[in-house]
């Protein structure tokens, strides 16, 4: 699994805002402040041959969205990272994709490493601007004026599961998941019903249940079918309904419990039993119910609170996960899942050190009381934005973390390590390690391919269609004891 985060960007005191130029500056600046890339190195490009973003999981091609030529501006700013991730400009935002991770804790770690990568490049880029100009980057999802940018999660699934089963099983889960994974937002937008504060940043932007688009008329379940792996075996489920989180527990649980819910769907134990009468309306009403207890209507007429829906998934997980599936991390996710559901039930305020929307709400409430601000006061919206600021001296979440006001799951050293080294137990290990060892022999790379240049200047492509291969266990010794040429020869030889 992996996540993709689009960051909001703005240049203070700029004569005019040019988010594409600013994003480009930031992403390129990262290359200049790393020791793994010699200044003379030629760029490793992204191998777009492997991508078809308009393929639809229901079996047909593109419905509404106009194909976007990603090769025009963005291919110039495309960085494949030695941690196995990808860093580039998507539309008008800097975007960081984690490497493929095998568990929720690694995914949290690599997403947090991304925040540091953004901050390091932000600082380097700022040095290129006028003295009075500042680059401000927010890990949030909205400008409060109807423009949203995403935080997407990707999960590898077996191709055998019919897509309809995923839609049935996952929709009620994702709609109610915001009580755990929402980032909180002051006010509303996009013509949705008014509220002072809501649980989710993104809920206002979803307009239908299933579809391919990610930018307009957004669907709760996205049908993009681009596995970046052997398409006969795998599906990559692209979840676009989540918020960008700052809280470590919110990120950890978001990806951890979703992965468990998908396992339940694969096993066939979640079917249509939790189907909601109107999921699009439900996500909006749940987002406005800060008690998390107002019932929503299921398709069969039953009335369940979002906590009850989440608890039903939790119980099925307890019953149906096998001992082998209950790894230490899965066990920990289950424990924490239960902990937050129990506490949400008693009083969400008990989680004011744990989950983003509650941490942020507590801060806003206290500040409102101190200054007597109404909810529509610009200071509160400013605080909301600044909660997501990635600068250690300005970001409100980061200040809370440094002052011990929010719960930590990671330590700083391991996050720094994750900026420079890939996870060891997915194919990201192969990608990241090859980039570290053989950069000058690599012509291009993608999620499932690497192209090497050989002695005579020709190109040799290695496909990595099995995400569980290319691990340290399988290729570690080989990678550390051969030249690029020997590596290609060996893999080619084994494959034929």
């Amino acid at each position: 699994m992996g996540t993709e985060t689009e960051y909001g960007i703005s240049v203070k005191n700029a004569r005019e805002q040019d988010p594409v130029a600013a994003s480009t500056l930031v992403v390129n600046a990262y290359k200049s402040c790393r020791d793994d890339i010699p200044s003379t190195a030629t760029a490793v490009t992204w191998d777009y041959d492997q991508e078809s973003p308009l393929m639809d999981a229901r079996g047909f091609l593109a419905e509404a969205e106009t194909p976007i030529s990603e090769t025009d501006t963005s291919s110039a700013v495309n960085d494949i990272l030695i941690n196995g991730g990808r860093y580039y400009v998507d539309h008008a935002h800097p975007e960081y994709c984690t490497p493929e991770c095998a568990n929720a804790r690694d995914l949290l770690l690599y997403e947090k490493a991304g925040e540091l990568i953004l901050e390091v490049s932000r600082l380097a880029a700022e040095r290129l601007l006028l003295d009075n100009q500042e680059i401000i980057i927010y890990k949030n999802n909205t400008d409060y004026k109807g423009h949203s940018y995403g935080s997407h999660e990707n999960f590898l699934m077996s191709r055998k599961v019919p897509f309809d089963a995923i839609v049935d099983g996952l929709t009620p889960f994702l709609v109610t998941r915001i009580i755990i994974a929402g980032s909180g937002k002051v006010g509303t937008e996009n013509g949705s019903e008014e509220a002072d504060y809501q649980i989710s940043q993104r809920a206002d932007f979803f307009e239908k249940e299933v579809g391919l688009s990610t930018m307009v008329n957004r669907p709760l379940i996205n049908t993009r079918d681009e596995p970046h792996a052997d398409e006969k075996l795998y599906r990559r489920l692209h979840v676009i309904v989540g918020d960008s989180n700052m809280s470590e527990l919110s990120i950890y649980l978001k990806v951890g419990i979703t992965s468990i819910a998908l396992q339940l769907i694969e096993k066939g134990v979640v079917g249509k039993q939790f189907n909601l009468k109107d999921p699009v309306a439900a996500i909006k009403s749940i987002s406005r119910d800060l008690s998390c207890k107002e019932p929503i209507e299921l398709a069969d007429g039953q009335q369940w609170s979002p906590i009850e829906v989440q608890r039903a998934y939790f119980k099925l997980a307890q019953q149906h996960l096998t001992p082998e599936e209950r790894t230490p991390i899965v066990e920990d996710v289950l424990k924490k899942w239960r902990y937050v559901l129990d506490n949400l039930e008693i009083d969400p305020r008990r989680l004011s050190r744990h989950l983003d929307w509650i941490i942020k709400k507590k801060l806003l409430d206290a500040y409102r009381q101190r200054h007597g601000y109404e909810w529509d006061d610009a200071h509160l919206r400013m605080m909301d934005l600044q909660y997501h600021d990635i600068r250690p001296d300005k970001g409100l979440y980061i200040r809370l973390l440094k002052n011990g006001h929010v719960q930590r799951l990671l330590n700083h050293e391991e996050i720094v390590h994750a900026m420079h080294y890939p996870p060891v137990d997915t194919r990201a290990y192969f990608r990241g390690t090859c980039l570290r060892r053989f950069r000058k022999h690599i012509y291009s790379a993608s999620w499932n391919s690497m192209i090497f240049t050989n002695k005579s200047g020709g190109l040799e492509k290695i496909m990595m269609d099995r995400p569980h291969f290319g691990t340290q266990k399988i290729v570690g010794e080989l990678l550390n004891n051969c030249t690029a040429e020997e590596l290609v020869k060996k893999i080619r030889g084994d494959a034929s």
Partner: protein
Amino acid sequence: MSREKQQEHLKRHIDETEDRQSDVGQSDVGNGEMDEAFVEDLDSLLDEIDEILEEDSQEFVENYIQRGGQ
């Protein structure tokens, strides 16, 4: 780090988190009531926000416009 060491490290880490979490679970209980130390803490935090919140909030928030992404 070897695989075993990593597992061990992880287990220790999870245990530590678990300890901290149960601490938090107990000390952080409040039916809206907060103990005095906590209120003091919050006060200094609000002082900090007074200091670091972007000046001209109104203007800043109005001018923060993004192009829609995905």
